[in-house]
């Protein structure tokens, strides 16, 4: 058994997001406050109450996904495969040179392959069962992206998928850490999601949390007095996670480390027990061996619905005190990406730690009553950053928190 104290470090990242393809494009857009939100173009949303989403601009499937895999997999897996390839290249890893059973893949997925599934259901209804393709059997499935990445790169260690909605991206880092404490040397973690098709959007509508505003500039205003829900988006980030000692030994890039992690689950709604987000934050800090004053910036979950925003602000204020730590949510530029969302937040937080800049929460201008947060709005804020907290909540009661340390310089 390997040394359990080894710290997981992120050595590579592949970003495919509404803010751009590649970590540099994403980071530049985030700093510039350039929004990736707009009218849905993947289908005609005219008949749907939600018309604004964050779509990935210029994703060239044929150029980015191996020929064979295009017809076999969903759009969400296309983006996952492509991000994984970028992340491995970024980490300067050649999987063919590593022992296959010491590499693992753990991604988050919230919707599975809904667009692929919708196409096959249409064939079933229009033409009959013989017209449903064989690949429907594997393409819709939550684990499809993990499986395809594993097969493509010959990674045969323990693989899995975490379906914890928006919290899932953080949970993949928790699972990566467990695996790295054992005999695994490299984990492909993070996630993507893409459910911007009529079937996928209809499923999302059932929560009642999506914004029905048609103007991308005021559709998603977390913590604002005028908050109206959140905007859905597609894409995410894939992260390469390795043990710090192994990564240092091979001279790998170092974007920062996972210092602490915790996940909690909310009690049933309507009861007397409080939501469990605060507990997740406190446990993640304790796990990292830090106190609230050690945290330099918080990347918030930022649901965009009044009650959820207030619950998150209360949890943060209970832990840190009123307006005691800068809080931001650059996901206002992408929308909530579900399985890809928290993974992208981690990528953004690591880039922020590396540059000493807190990106802004765009759109939000007037904090709602009772939101006692030092929310970074309008423009990025320069700051001495060593440690960040990333918070995420998934529909259905999932909470997760990760404490990140900055890059080793």
């Amino acid at each position, binding site marked *: 058994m390997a040394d359990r104290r080894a710290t997981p470090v992120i050595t590579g990242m592949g970003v495919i997001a509404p803010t751009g393809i590649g970590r540099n494009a994403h980071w530049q857009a985030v700093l510039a406050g350039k929004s990736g939100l707009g009218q849905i173009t993947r289908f005609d949303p005219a008949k749907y109450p939600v018309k604004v989403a964050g779509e990935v601009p210029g994703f060239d499937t044929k150029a980015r996904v*191996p020929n*064979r895999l295009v*017809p076999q997999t969903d759009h969400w897996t296309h983006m996952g495969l492509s991000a994984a390839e970028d992340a491995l290249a970024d980490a300067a890893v050649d999987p063919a040179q590593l022992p296959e059973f010491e590499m693992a893949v753990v991604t988050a997925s919230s919707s599975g392959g809904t667009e692929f599934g919708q196409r096959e259901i249409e064939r079933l209804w229009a033409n*009959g069962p013989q017209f449903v393709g*064989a690949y429907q059997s594997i393409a819709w499935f939550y684990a499809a992206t993990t499986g395809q990445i594993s097969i493509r790169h010959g990674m045969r260690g323990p693989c899995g998928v975490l379906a914890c909605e928006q919290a899932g991206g953080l949970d993949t880092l928790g699972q990566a850490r467990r695996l790295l404490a054992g005999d695994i040397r490299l984990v492909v973690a993070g996630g993507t999601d893409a459910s911007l098709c009529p079937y996928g959007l209809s499923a999302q509508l059932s929560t009642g949390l999506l914004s029905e505003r048609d103007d991308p500039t005021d559709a998603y205003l977390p913590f604002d007095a005028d908050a109206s829900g959140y905007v859905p988006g597609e894409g995410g980030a894939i992260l390469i996670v390795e043990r710090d000692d192994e990564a240092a030994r091979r001279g790998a890039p170092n974007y920062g480390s996972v210092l602490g992690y915790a996940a909690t689950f909310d009690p049933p709604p309507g009861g007397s027990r409080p939501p469990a987000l605060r507990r997740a934050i406190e446990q993640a800090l304790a796990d990292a061996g830090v106190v609230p004053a050690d945290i330099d910036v918080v990347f918030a979950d930022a649901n965009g619905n009044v009650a959820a925003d207030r619950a998150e602000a209360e949890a943060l204020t209970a832990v840190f005190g009123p307006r005691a730590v800068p809080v931001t949510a650059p996901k206002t530029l992408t929308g909530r990406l579900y399985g890809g969302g928290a993974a992208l937040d981690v990528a953004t937080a690591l880039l922020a730690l590396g540059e000493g800049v807190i990106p802004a929460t765009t759109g939000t201008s007037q904090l709602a009553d009772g939101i006692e947060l030092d929310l970074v709005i309008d423009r990025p804020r320069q700051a001495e950053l060593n440690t960040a907290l990333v918070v995420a909540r998934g529909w259905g009661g999932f909470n997760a928190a990760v404490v990140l340390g900055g890059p080793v310089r």
Partner: protein
Amino acid sequence: MRRSYSAARFGSQKGILMSKKFTLDDLRELMRSSAGVDDSVDIDGDIADKTFEEIGYDSLAVLEMASQVQRTYSVPMPDESTEYMTTPQLAVDYINEQFEKAGV
């Protein structure tokens, strides 16, 4: 529930097939449009007697190809088709047998 496909519905394809057999090139076309072809495989090369596995086709890819034959040509392809279709040449032979049985 089984569905039947009328000759009228697939008339044009049947008309073409009446005068020619299913060839290796037809299979190549079918492979391109069904499960896709790996970038590293020269589909136009000498593939007739290679196993499907050698050209990057797993059992699901062969199954998808078989159902594509069924959809495109309206020829029934039984579930056990994939057991006989282990190389492109054997697949072409098997598909032609199915054409004959169906009277196309």
